[in-house]
């Protein structure tokens, strides 16, 4: 068992899938000899050949649309969109086709495909390379949207996405690609999609987050612990479907919920979680549900990027407000 960072864990999962299932094919821009701009597919074309690891021409519409077509005919496409900012033209294929083909044909045709895309800010990338638009995807009926937060979870969740009988968008928090390493076993074991993960236990406050923002969330939980406030940290992991039960159970225990996401506030997924708690946990709540999120602004260029990203300080301020409320 070796320590792997997230990009290595993703590569190991892709390799495992290629190894075990001859129907798995990878395609995308620069994923062949270049190994992907983040090296997620490094070495795979050498190992599995150019029929199974394919560079496409520069067209996201083709990448997503071909995945739909190929998936209906028994292939298992695991396609890459180089950055989430270039995924918009693929949304046509996702929303109008991938996510509804099963329903339209009453089960005759289906789309077991995975679309991988790095997302999120914090690495000083050029414009259009740092957005977090996961809520747009999670809004599409028929789609699954998954975000890992650790190397091991990335490995297990990506295998699950590939095995899933329906289309899955697998969003990779690129700020975490090389941030930390941990032991990852190459056992081929998939993690269940749709389950949130409780990463830290606590009785005073529930912090819900996903992807790279868990870094700040953990740091805030640590700081709160120093003050004697025990925060429970939940990694949502699956943005669609949402594991409402795990969140409700936690909030029934703590009475407080703070949601942290990098994406803009308005119509973000934090709103969905807050609404669910208002509907189901009102009597357990000791304080209003709070959100600490990106602002409703265009993602700024790198000089102001840090000022956009939700900070540990903002999380702590909201947490303190909630603790003082009751």
């Amino acid at each position, binding site marked *: 068992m070796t320590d792997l960072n997230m990009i290595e864990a993703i590569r190991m999962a892709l390799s495992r899938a290629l190894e075990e299932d001859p129907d798995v094919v990878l395609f995308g*821009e*620069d994923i*062949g*000899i*270049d*190994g992907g*701009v983040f090296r997620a597919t490094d070495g795979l074309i050498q190992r599995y050949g150019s029929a199974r690891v394919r*560079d496409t*021409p*520069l*067209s*996201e*519409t*083709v990448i997503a649309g071909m995945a739909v077509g190929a998936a209906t005919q028994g292939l298992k496409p695991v396609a890459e969109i180089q950055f989430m*900012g*270039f995924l*918009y*033209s693929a949304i046509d294929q996702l929303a109008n086709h991938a996510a509804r083909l099963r329903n339209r044909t009453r089960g005759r045709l289906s789309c077991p495909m995975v679309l991988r895309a790095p997302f999120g800010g914090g690495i*000083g*990338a*050029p*414009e*259009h*390379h740092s957005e977090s638009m996961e809520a747009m995807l999670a809004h599409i009926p028929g789609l699954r949207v998954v975000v890992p937060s650790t190397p091991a979870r990335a490995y297990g969740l990506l295998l699950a996405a590939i095995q899933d009988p329906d289309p899955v968008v697998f969003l990779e928090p690129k700020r975490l690609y090389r941030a930390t390493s941990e032991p990852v076993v190459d056992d081929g074991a998939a993690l269940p999609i749709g389950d949130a993960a409780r990463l830290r236990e606590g009785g005073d406050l529930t912090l819900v987050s996903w992807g790279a923002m868990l870094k700040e969330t953990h740091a805030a939980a640590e700081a709160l612990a120093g003050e004697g406030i025990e925060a429970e940290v939940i990694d949502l992991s699956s943005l669609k479907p949402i594991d409402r039960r795990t969140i409700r159970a936690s909030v029934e225990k703590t009475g407080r919920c703070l949601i942290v996401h990098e994406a803009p*506030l308005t119509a973000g997924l934090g709103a969905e979680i807050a609404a669910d708690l208002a509907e189901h946990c009102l009597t357990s709540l000791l304080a209003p549900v709070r959100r600490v999120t990106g*602002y*409703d*602004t*265009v993602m*700024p*260029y*790198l*000089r*102001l*990027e840090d*000022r*956009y990203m939700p*900070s540990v*300080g*903002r999380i702590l301020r909201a947490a303190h407000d909630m603790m003082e409320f009751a």
Partner: protein
Amino acid sequence: MAEPLVFLNAAGACVRDLPDFARDGQTLKALYAAMVRTRRFDAKAVALQRTGRLGTYASSIGQEAISVGVASAMRAEDVFLPSFREHGGQLWRGVTLEELFLYWGGDERGNDFGGPRQDFPVCIPVASQYPHAAGVALAMQQKGSGGVAVAIGGDGSTSKGDFYEALNIVGIWQLPAVFVINNNAWAISVPRSQQSQAQKLSDKAIGTGLPGEQIDGNDVIAVRAATERALERARAGEGGTLIECLSYRLGDHTTADDASRYRDEEEVSPHWKEEPLIRLRAHLVEAHGWGKKDEEALLRACAEEVDAAAETYLATEPEPARAMFDHLYADLPPDIAAQAEEARDD
């Protein structure tokens, strides 16, 4: 198959009668100076990036003739819609070195051009500038402004539907637009051969009924001549043109790329003999008395100007956090203004 249009070959020899503008020494020297200035900017930008003082940067080294040649054919009232590798054209159009440094340094103010107020900022989402160019051209046609929209994109950009879809409507509505392909033979790691089976990318015009021409993009005279013709056609109400400029990406895709992963040095090195500066310099020496002193003076002037601009950029304080909100809407909705307060406090 017709050979790509070329006036100055790689050795700097005239292989066909020069167009009028290219008989004028001053004009050629201005084109040369603009390319040298662009190259100097490129070198400085890469150096700043390598030392952590600029963001990811896309060098245009070896492709200066395309950008400069195209822009030099345009009028001030035309509108330029560049991809991210057309610094030379932006500079020719009056975007300042400071503005370019600011943009690539991650500061939106770099897009608030003091010069060409109607030009578009660089376009990062590949090919999405072509439909804009069609729209700009529509406005020009409708308002009878006499202007032309000129978009540039890479070889990779021709694989996106946006490229064809925009060219198609330019054809149908006879819009005053010129699309220029900067074919530098690579789209990150994907070679031109894997982008299209078309023999020439300019052939992609055929399906839209528009004329397409392939030219030597390392010959600034050919680029300017072909662009001038296309602009004249557009101004005469005869519609759009597609121009494919053949060049070669001598550097990495961007400072975030390592081209040695996917292409051999042996492939690259012959192209250094074909790059656009050498041939024009040779011609200037031969036909217009360009001497060592002129060359040195130009290099020195460019270096000083670029260094001074870099210093200005580095001394420019980042905007306050509130700037994220200032230009989001003409009138910031109160709902969102509250967030601006929070950003200020953070």
